[in-house]
Every structure is written in structure tokens, then in C-alpha cells.
């Protein structure tokens, strides 16, 4: 409620500022008898920007630093023995915060805590008043400053343009910086893992057997990446064997044979299919597909496990079909119509045209699409968690249970985790490996797709 009122007040103030700027520019133009550089809208907007941005900056700085400052002031209320002991200090501070916020605290409340809470309440009150006043003053000053510059020569339109550009840059910077931040944090944790385990043992080890950290004694266990990587690769290969032929042929049918009406209906349908949550596919694999395959295996006298690389790969392939066909369809449709006309005009049949002209022309783009699909398969988690069997062994038999990099990350991070032990930290090393693999695939794919686009400009 309170927040709503504050927002409403801010909006009202800003719209008044806007009106003021716009009307000022009109009256300046009228009294000077000249034409302003920009339309009144821009002077209004500029005033709004000058009012809001400096005030917002002040407020952001306040919220960044004020808690620290206030906390250090409260610290002086604590007795020396509490302030000196980090653990006691943190718990005392949080009790004080709760008291001050009116939530109360459990157990006996010592006198100093009560005092500190009272001080904190009044400090907060003054700080709030001060910041409201400060923000108001800065806003008014900014507005007045901008107002004083309004004149026929003042290029408000260009300034607003500049402000919009700055806003957009900020947003993209946030997107990029978060990515960089994530990568860096994963990287630093992975490096910590490598202080426990030799990178060579990790990347080239063939045994995966991390003992639980709680058992403690007797070595750390084996952290060999290869069984997991092989599981990932095997499942990805099976998935692509399913998805590529089916997806590609579906795309060819859609773009070259299907009528406009069918296309109109089925294209969005395919895209919906691509949006089904992967856990649903995982379920499907676990409950339906796995038992089905093991039943067939039993009938043929083969030992096929219900949860196996085969089950997970087939279902993952089904999941990727719409992805492959949708991307390939886009790329095939991009092959110019004149190419088809040229081929048909020479008397080629439809399938000859597709095989000899359209597919070769679209090939680089299609390969790019496949690589994107591979990188999706490599990073896919839910299906393999449920359907691959979670058995980290090096095996060439697709009908046996395997484990993958993603599944292992899930395993290592669920349950009780101690983030100082290699058993948990290995998840970051695995994540980093996965990240590097998919990054490389995506970079290559994007490069190929881009190159292909240029061909027909």
C-alpha cells in the first residue's frame, strides 16, 4: 500500500515536471518569436530525465551504503565480548534488526539489545527522512537546472535520444555482466575443486566414485570425468540419430510439399511441442518408453534395462525433433524462390530440386541447426535424470544404464552439501566443462549460420 502511494506520488510529480517543461518551451518560443529546435514533448521529457535520474542515483547510493553505516553505528551499543566474536555479533545484530522491525526476538532480551534496537529505530527514521528530503532537493535542482537551459537552440531531441541509447546500453551491459559473473563464479569454484583433485585425474580419469564427504576417512574417492562424458556423448548420439532424419524430413515436407493451410496450422503446433517442459518427457521415458523397450528386449531374449542410454536417447531425440525441424524449416524457406523456379524451369522434379539445389544451398544453415540441437542435447538434464539409470560406468552398450554430466551435477548438489568438500565442488568443474562444450558448439553453429545468411544477401 505504502509503496503504491509512493509510486503514485512519483508519477504525479514527474508528469507535472513534464507538463512544465513542455509548456515552458512553448512560452519561450512564443515570447522570443522563434521556432524551438525540438518539439515540446522533448523538452518535457528532458526535464523529467533531469529530475528523475540524479534523484534516482542518489537513492541508489543511499541504499547501497546506508545499511553498512547504520550497522557500524549500532555496533557501538554491543558489549566488547559480543562485538569481538563474529558469530555472536551476527546473531545479536539480526536479533536487534528483528526487535527494531517489531517482530520481537526469542528468549531473554539483554538490555543492550533493547537499547540498540531503539537506537536503530530512530536512526532509520531519521535516515529515511533525510533521504526523502535529499532526493526531493536533488530532483528539484535537476529540474531547475534543465529548465534554465531551455532555449530555441537547445537540442532537447538529441539529448533524449542520447538518454535512450544510454538506457539500452545499460540493459545490455547488465545482461552481459551477469553472464560474465556466473562464468567467473563457476570458474573460481572449479579452481577450488582443482586444489583438491589433480585436473589430469579429473579430465582423464576413467572411474567415477566420489565417496560422500560425511564418511570422511580414507581418501577422497575418484573423480574421473570420462564415464560421465561418455554417457552424455552416447545419449546425444542416439538422440541425434532420432531427431536429425525425422526433423529434417519433416522440415522438408513442411517447406516444400505442404500446402499453405497445413503449414499455417502445423508450424505453430510444432513450436508448441518444442515448449513442453522436459520433465514431462522424462516422465514419459520413465513410465512408458523404458518399460516398453525392456519388454521388447525380453521378448527378443536381450537384456535391455528400462532406464538406459537407449531410452533416454530416444526420448531426448523425440524432444529435439520440433527444434530441429523448426530451425531447418526456417533455413530451407530462406533459400530464394528463384532457386526453385530455376530448377523446376529446367524440368527437375520436386525431389530432384530438393536434393540437388535446395539442400546443398541450405546445408551450412542446417548443419548449424544440428549443432544447436546437439548443444541442447548435451545440456539436457531432466530426461536423463529420470531415464538414463544413473550409473556412471564406461560402457559401449546403449542398453545399459549410464550417467551423464548433468545428472551428476544434480546428484552432487542435492541432499546435504558441504561447499568446502570436493564432492560438492566437483559440480562446478562439471558445469564448467559442460559450459565450455556447449559454448564451442554454439559458437561454431552461429558462425556457420551467419556465413550461410550472407550467401543470399
Amino acid at each position, binding site marked *: 500500500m505504502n509503496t503504491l502511494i509512493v509510486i503514485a506520488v512519483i508519477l504525479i510529480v514527474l508528469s507535472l515536471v513534464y507538463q512544465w517543461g513542455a509548456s515552458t518551451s512553448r512560452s519561450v518560443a512564443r515570447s522570443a518569436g522563434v521556432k524551438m529546435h525540438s518539439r515540446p514533448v522533448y523538452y518535457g521529457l528532458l526535464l523529467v530525465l533531469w529530475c528523475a535520474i540524479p534523484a534516482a542515483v542518489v537513492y541508489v547510493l543511499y541504499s547501497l551504503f546506508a545499511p553498512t553505516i547504520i550497522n557500524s553505528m549500532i555496533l557501538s551499543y554491543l558489549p566488547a565480548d559480543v562485538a569481538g566474536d563474529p558469530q555472536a555479533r551476527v546473531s545479536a545484530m539480526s536479533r536487534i534488526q528483528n526487535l527494531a522491525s517489531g517482530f520481537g526476538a526469542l528468549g531473554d532480551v539483554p538490555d543492550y539489545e533493547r537499547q540498540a534496537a531503539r537506537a536503530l529505530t530512530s536512526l532509520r527514521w531519521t535516515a529515511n527522512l533525510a533521504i526523502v528530503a535529499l532526493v526531493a532537493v536533488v530532483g528539484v535542482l535537476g529540474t531547475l537546472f534543465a529548465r534554465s537551459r531551455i532555449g530555441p537552440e537547445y537540442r532537447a531531441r538529441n539529448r533524449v535520444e542520447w538518454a535512450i541509447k544510454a538506457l539500452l546500453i545499460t540493459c545490455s551491459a547488465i545482461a552481459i555482466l551477469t553472464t560474465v559473473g556466473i562464468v567467473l563464479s563457476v570458474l573460481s569454484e572449479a579452481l577450488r575443486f582443482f586444489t583438491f583433485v589433480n585436473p589430469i585425474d579429473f579430465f582423464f580419469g576413467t572411474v567415477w566414485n566420489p565417496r560422500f564427504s560425511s564418511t570422511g576417512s580414507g581418501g577422497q574417492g575418484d573423480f574421473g570425468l570420462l564415464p560421465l562424458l561418455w554417457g552424455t556423448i552416447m545419449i546425444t548420439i542416439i538422440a541425434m540419430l532420432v531427431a536429425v532424419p525425422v526433423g529434417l524430413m519433416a522440415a522438408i515436407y513442411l517447406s516444400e510439399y505442404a500446402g499453405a493451410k497445413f503449414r499455417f496450422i502445423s508450424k505453430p503446433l510444432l513450436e508448441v511441442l518444442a515448449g513442453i517442459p522436459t520433465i514431462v518427457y522424462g516422465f514419459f521415458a520413465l513410465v512408458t518408453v523404458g518399460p516398453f523397450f525392456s519388454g521388447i528386449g525380453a521378448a527378443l531374449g536381450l537384456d535391455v534395462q528400462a532406464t538406459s542410454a537407449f531410452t533416454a536417447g530416444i526420448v531426448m531425440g523425440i524432444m529435439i525433433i520440433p527444434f530441429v525441424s523448426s530451425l531447418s524449416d526456417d533455413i530451407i524457406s530462406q533459400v530464394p524462390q528463384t532457386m526453385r*523456379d530455376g530448377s523446376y*524451369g*529446367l*524440368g527437375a522434379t520436386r525431389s530432384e530440386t530438393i536434393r540437388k539445389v535446395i539442400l546443398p544451398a541450405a546445408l551450412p544453415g542446417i548443419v548449424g541447426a544440428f549443432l544447436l540441437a546437439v548443444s541442447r542435447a548435451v545440456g539436457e538434464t531432466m530426461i536423463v535424470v529420470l531415464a538414463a539409470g544413473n550409473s556412471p560406468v564406461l560402457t559401449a552398450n546403449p542398453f545399459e544404464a549410464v550417467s551423464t554430466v548433468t545428472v551428476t551435477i544434480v546428484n552432487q548438489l542435492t541432499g546435504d552439501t558441504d561447499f568446502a568438500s570436493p564432492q560438492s565442488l566437483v559440480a562446478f568443474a562439471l558445469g564448467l566443462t559442460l559450459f565450455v562444450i556447449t559454448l564451442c558448439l554454439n559458437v561454431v553453429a552461429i558462425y556457420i549460420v551467419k556465413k550461410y545468411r550472407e550467401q543470399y544477401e
Partner: protein
Amino acid sequence: MSAVAAEASTGRYETIRIADPVARPTKIAAKEVYVHYGAKEALHHVSIDIPAQAVTAFIGPSGCGKSTFLRCFNRMNDTIENCRVDGVLDMEGEDLNDHSLDVVLLRARVGMVFQKPNPFPKSIFENIAYGPRIHGVAQDKAHLQEIVETSLKKAGLWEEVKDRLNEPGTGLSGGQQQRLCIARAIAVSPEVILMDEPCSALDPIATAKVEELIGELRQNYTIIIVTHSMSQAQRVSQRTAYFHLGYLVEEGPTESIFNNPQEKRTKDYITGVFG
């Protein structure tokens, strides 16, 4: 009775036809051709005789149906989803519009060159070899090479590309690409070549080369060309047909159409009053 009066009385427009001073054998006789796009009639009862071993030019304002009519001759309208062609296109006793006719074989006999040069993203050699390959024309590799060479020679491109046959066709200049497309059409030895504004994407020099080529090809092929350039129609064609809003208004020897048009609409168009 004038044509306009006839149209008013019968609701049907009668094409004005002027015979050639020298009689030419007819290659294709179009009779009462109608084309519909969905419910819309784009071409109304067009009848025309296309002379053999000569260039016939289709002219007329944009959207009057020239391309639509041209595409009837090799059934390219079949590739357009809601397009329907009615009527008879009699090529030496065979109806091109007969739906039991094999369009694949037809298109080998009636080749087409498009407005925008559209070489395949393959080598120059493969571009030319494409048609002979799919029709199984060449007996062996040497024969195929021979076909490629003669086609390029006929298209006047051999000297320019003989050292770079393995380079992509898309790497040629626009004019060269268009001549490559002509060579590609010639390679399957068609009897008729259709050209839809073949020079509209070319500069004057490349245009002159293509026009010269058309003049040479006329000795052996029947050519129909759609063009927006009056001067080009006069330079390359022997007969001209003027289309207007889906009607064939007037057809006759190029000279007589340009020097002595019978219809006001034709006259307005070629003198630039209209369109």
C-alpha cells in the same frame, strides 16, 4: 465495327491481329487461354500464334498478365498453389495444357530464363550440367563436357569463363550470370526459350550482349520475351503482343505495332502517355 464497339456490344474483347508480311510457320498456337488466381481471372481468353524461329515480345503495363501468360507455355503456373489455367496451347499438335502431359519433359523442350539471374550455388560447370544430368542427356563424361562447352559458346560466355569452370556461378557479374542462365537453359536443347524481363537487372552493356545473343539464338530457337523496354522490343523482336488488364489487345509485326498501332491503348502505351 471497331474493337471497342464490339466489346461494348458482346461484352467480349476481340484482339486486333495483323498478319506478317512474310508468312512464318506457327510453333505454338494458344487458343482461348484463361488464367485464374483463386477466384480472380488474371487472363481473359487470350489467343495468339507464336511463330517458329522468331522472337515474340510481350509488352504491356505492370500487372497486365504478361508473366502469367508466359508461364503457361512451360506450365510453371503449376507451381503456384491457387493458379488454374484453362484453354489450349497447341505446340505442333500437342496440347501443352493437357494435364496428362509430362511437365518434366515439357520443360526440357520449353526452357525459361528469369528476371533475376538465378544461378545455383554450384560451380559454373555444374550449373550447366544440371539440366543434362537430370534428363540423362549425356552418355558419358566427355559428352557432358562437350554439352557444357557448346552451351557456353552459344551463350557467348565461353571465352570469359573457360578457365574458371569450377568456380561458383554466383561469383560472376550480373550480366554473366544471366548469360549463364541462358546457357543453362540451352544445355537441354529446348525448342522454345521463354524470357521474363531477362535484362531488367542488367546494365546497358550487359543488356546489349544479351540482346545480341537473343538475335543469334533466334536462328535455332523459338523465343518469347517479356520486356518493359519499348526499344528492346523493337530491337530484338519480330512480332509484338500488347497486353492490357488481362486482355491481349493487339498483336502483329513489331514494326507495325510500333509505327502504326491500331488501338488507342496500344498507342498510348508505346508513346508513353500511359503506363
